[in-house]
């Protein structure tokens, strides 16, 4: 083999890792700064959550609980999911509760609620309720307690108001009514909901997890113990698209959103380059562009490294 080629691959094999960092940095930063339209394919685990949440639309007797078990470090992946679910609930007039278990998540819940509610005429204690931060040691008693009486298990919301006196609690007593729990976490914390809220009280549990935690949660998804799962940023991008295409859709026939349809989702493309969709509602899809390029770069590095490895090994033999 040409000496120059061997020498090139020898150099490449021992390249300073800082060059790799620069390439990765640009491959992430450029797609974030210059968004482009790419196709978002919706998968079943995300679709199932959407359909379940949407089935509560306009129903006074049903509610969704969003459980936050993560801090700001995993926000880029999990925050767009949370905002999308809140947006879906507000668009479709679905009662939604939020709760968090670590102190660092408390401002995050406020931030998510503030981000989503500014476009809607919704009121705390009426359309949504933030139970606020509850210490992790109380997680088990609260999880179990909500199976009997939510107002008794939680007692006060984030503003110190008695939960039982809030208007949103009308017709909402326990997991029979607050029938869907979505746990957003960078860990396997959904397992606790499965063990206590699902196994004992039959609550529907869904998880929103970071991509690295997806494999850990797959067993529960396959058995149906998790009725759906947001799989990292991809899951968030899929939900953003579903909300755009169905819940936020407005026309003469459908003034308050349209029902889910597989045909419509296949045919519809939502451009993210214009101003049609506010930035906060397309963050995950823009992030997916960066993730796509970063994945391609990593695959390219793996291939390059292996080509170099085989060429130099051949020479050694």
């Amino acid at each position, binding site marked *: 083999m040409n000496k120059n080629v061997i020498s090139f691959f020898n150099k490449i094999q021992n390249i300073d890792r800082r060059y790799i960092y620069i390439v990765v940095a640009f491959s992430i930063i450029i797609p974030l700064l210059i968004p482009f339209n790419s196709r978002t394919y919706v998968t079943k685990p995300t679709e199932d959550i959407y359909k379940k949440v949407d089935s509560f639309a306009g129903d006074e007797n049903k509610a969704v609980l969003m459980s936050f078990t993560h801090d700001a470090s995993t926000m880029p992946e999990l925050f767009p999911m949370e905002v999308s679910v809140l947006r879906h609930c507000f668009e479709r007039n679905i009662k939604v509760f939020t709760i968090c278990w670590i102190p*660092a998540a408390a*401002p995050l819940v406020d931030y998510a609620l503030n981000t989503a509610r500014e476009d809607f005429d919704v009121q705390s204690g009426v359309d949504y309720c933030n139970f606020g931060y509850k210490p992790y040691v109380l997680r088990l*008693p609260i999880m179990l307690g909500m199976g009997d009486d939510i107002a008794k298990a939680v007692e006060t919301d984030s503003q110190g108001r008695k939960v039982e006196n809030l208007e949103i609690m009308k017709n909402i007593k326990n997991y029979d009514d607050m029938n869907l729990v979505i746990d957003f976490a960078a860990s396997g914390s959904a397992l606790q909901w499965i063990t206590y809220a699902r196994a004992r009280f039959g609550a529907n549990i869904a998880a929103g997890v970071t991509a690295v935690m997806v494999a850990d949660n797959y067993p529960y998804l396959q058995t149906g113990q998790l009725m759906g799962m947001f799989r990292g940023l991809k899951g968030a991008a899929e939900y953003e698209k579903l909300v755009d295409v169905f819940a936020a859709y407005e026309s003469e026939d459908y003034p308050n959103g349209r029902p889910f349809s597989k045909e419509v989702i296949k045919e519809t493309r939502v451009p993210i380059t214009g101003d049609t969709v506010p930035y906060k509602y397309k963050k995950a899809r823009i992030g997916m562009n960066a993730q796509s390029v970063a*994945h391609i770069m990593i695959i390219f590095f793996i291939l390059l490294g292996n080509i170099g490895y085989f060429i130099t090994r051949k020479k050694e033999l």
Partner: protein
Amino acid sequence: MKRQIPLIIIMTLGFMFVAHSFIPHKISVDFFDWFQDWAKAISPFAVSLGIMSLFMVHGTKIKRKVPNWQYSVITLAGLIFTAFAGFAWGTQSGTPYMWLFENVQMPMSATMFSLLAFYIASAAYKAFRARSAEATVLLVAAVVVMLGQVPLGAMISKWIPETSTWILNVPNLAAKRAIMIGVGLGITATSLKILLGIERTYLGGGD
């Protein structure tokens, strides 16, 4: 007595919780309500303990001027200032507390987590080699799953996301389930040992 009293508390409460899970009797429900009140009363002490511990650890570091003690000053200052901002102006949108969250904690935490991408890319390039049949299988699986995770995979071929899902649903699940069953059996055995007083190492003090 120092060991017997905690042991009696754990064994009694442990069996009561097991009973509560399986017997929906009024006594069982009342017991759980009583436990809830106790748990709520105890939890603030855990926070106080955490703050005390943080002050003791970092206070000692500052006092002894150990290497990098300056970071301890920043940690304690951050704790005091954030707590003060929360108590003084509240935690709602537009307050100094939320400003700190949005402009300090959020970007700094996300920056730390995002470093992972750089390490993964560098490690993949330097170490991910098809040196053996097993390493080649791992490498091919990683490439397929990575492509299956982004829209480009589906654009290249519908088989890529399907294969990626198959990898996660079949080989991944087989391995995960095996581990989980092992862990589950271990937890059950350890729990029983604790409930029956056989396992006592959590009490400290040897044996």
